[in-house]
């Protein structure tokens, strides 16, 4: 394989893993925009999605499409349940309280997963076989195409949801001004619930489509949360377009770094980027500094 096609190969695998990071970051942003909360449990939704779909397919022999839908519904319910249990009862919580609460939620979800699935690793077969497609000397797995297609679809559906539906518009209203939104009759608490459910659904989709490439176990959530958060920070917290661009950038950086430099430090790349962003430009590369000064988390 020539260096050129090797690099192309890395870029393609970077784009596919980067799409997942982008989905996790979108999940962060959905909740952040409606509530100002950084939800540390975001990674657990990814893990739950992947592990639920994988066990439905391999243990109960459910067809992949049904397993996909069932897993998304289950995780969405888990997201809503989490909001009712942990976020809803709080009155005027401080940021530190919210951070601890979502961390508690994340270990609780992880613990429940360990209780149900044990410490075993689960594998989801690829959606349409493993015969690679050759393209300019690089071999592309069919799953990569699925990942890109489904991520694209999720992004389109989300934008349509926020633009055209009443619930989507209401959530945007809450995001821009909570008080004003409640004055015009929007049920803010309900929108918070929606945002957790929606964000769980997006995370679950990410977990299901990546499961055929990355094995799933109960402990996988944290790393997805960290990298998704790095992406959200790089793109500017709350910025949807930024999250997608940053996801792809970080995915590609990581794949190139792992391929060309050292695979030991692969996971450290995203984290180094996170630290650099926090230290040098906390508003993210796509966020405006002015806007981020108004935000706090």
């Amino acid at each position: 394989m020539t260096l050129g096609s090797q690099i192309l190969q890395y870029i393609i695998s970077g784009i596919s893993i980067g799409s997942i990071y982008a989905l996790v970051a979108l999940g962060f942003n959905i909740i952040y925009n409606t509530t100002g909360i950084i939800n540390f449990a975001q990674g657990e939704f990814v893990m739950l999605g992947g592990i639920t779909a994988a066990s439905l397919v391999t243990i109960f022999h459910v067809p992949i499409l049904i397993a996909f839908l069932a897993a998304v519904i289950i995780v969405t319910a888990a997201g809503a349940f989490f909001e009712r249990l942990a976020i809803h009862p709080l009155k005027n919580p401080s940021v530190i309280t919210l951070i601890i609460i979502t961390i508690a939620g994340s270990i609780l979800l992880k613990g429940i997963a360990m209780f149900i699935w044990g410490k075993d690793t689960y594998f989801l077969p690829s959606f349409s076989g493993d015969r690679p497609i050759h393209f300019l000397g690089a071999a592309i797995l069919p799953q990569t195409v699925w990942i890109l297609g489904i991520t694209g679809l999720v992004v389109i559906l989300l934008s349509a949801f926020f633009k055209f539906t009443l619930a989507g518009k209401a959530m945007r209203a809450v995001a821009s001004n909570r008080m004003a939104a409640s004055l015009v009759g929007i049920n803010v608490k309900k929108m918070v619930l929606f945002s957790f459910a929606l964000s769980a659904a997006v995370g679950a989709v990410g977990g299901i489509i990546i499961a055929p490439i990355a094995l799933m176990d109960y402990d996988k959530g944290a790393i997805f949360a960290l990298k998704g958060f790095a992406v959200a920070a790089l793109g500017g917290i709350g910025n949807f377009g930024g999250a997608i661009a940053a996801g792809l950038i970080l995915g590609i950086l990581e794949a190139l770094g792992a391929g060309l430099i050292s695979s030991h430090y692969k996971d450290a790349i995203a984290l180094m980027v996170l630290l650099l962003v926090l230290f040098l430009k906390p508003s993210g590369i796509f966020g405006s500094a002015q806007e981020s000064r108004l935000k706090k988390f």
Partner: protein
Amino acid sequence: MIKSNYLALLILALVLAFIPLAISNVYYLGILIFVGINSLITIGLSLLMGYAGQISLGHAAFFGLGAYLSGVLSTRLAVPPVSALLLAALFTALVALLIGLPTLRLKGHYLAMATLGFGQIVYIVFNAWVEMTGGPSGFGNIPRLRIGGVVFDTDLKYFYLVWGLVVVGLFFAVNIIHSRVGRALRTMHTSEVAAGTLGINTVRYKIQIFVISAVYASVAGSLYAYFVTFLSPGTFGISFSILLVTMVVFGGRFSVWGALLGTAVLSILPESLRIIKDYDVLVYGAVLLLVMIFFPEGLVGLIGRVFRPRSLPEKLRT
């Protein structure tokens, strides 16, 4: 207030002095040594959480830096343990300063994110830098701690050393709380703007407390290294950082005594109840969530409520 704290410290020191006479079982003494080591970290962390109002999700990494630096310096470079401990603490303080300086200047909780990312990077380095750290399988043969002519080679000696340092650490923490820094931080809790108009440099105090809490963790790490004489990365991951936060919150994050209590309960219970050890993640998650929702002031707050049922919730009571 400060006098009752000193009295409590004196009582604690007396009780501790007699514990080894009551407990002859080496296994229990070992558990108590770990409780002491963990307490040293959580006392520092509770200063950060309860007084500076910030949260660190990377204290396991500061603990790890203390442990690995001491271990590596003593075994590979034959640095005397006490010097290694001090060097490790100094280095950890510098690292904490480097993280705190940019992130604590910003409003909100950038520190939480930065420490989370930093903690994971340190964990990765412990695993990947095989020549220095032994990688995932770790490295051993760390010498015993030696101060002057005394070698701390028995559990009994180590018990007194660790708990002696815990008492010193508590004394120091109580003094910080009742010093200018502590008062400034308490003002900040009520209103950061008001504190600012009074000329309190809130950022500077937050950074100081963060660095101090990292040093507590580093010293605890060094003590850990010289006690177990073997290090592997598993001990220093994110889950331990979160367990430390859980201990502080469970005990009561507005009091250094809460940190001590939470650490003791959450370190001893899993040893006696097998089921907690098997489902530790589930149990800790549930504990943390329940405490935050139902009694955010933790065990100490709960005890306070039992004894003074009608008193107003007095935050930041020490």
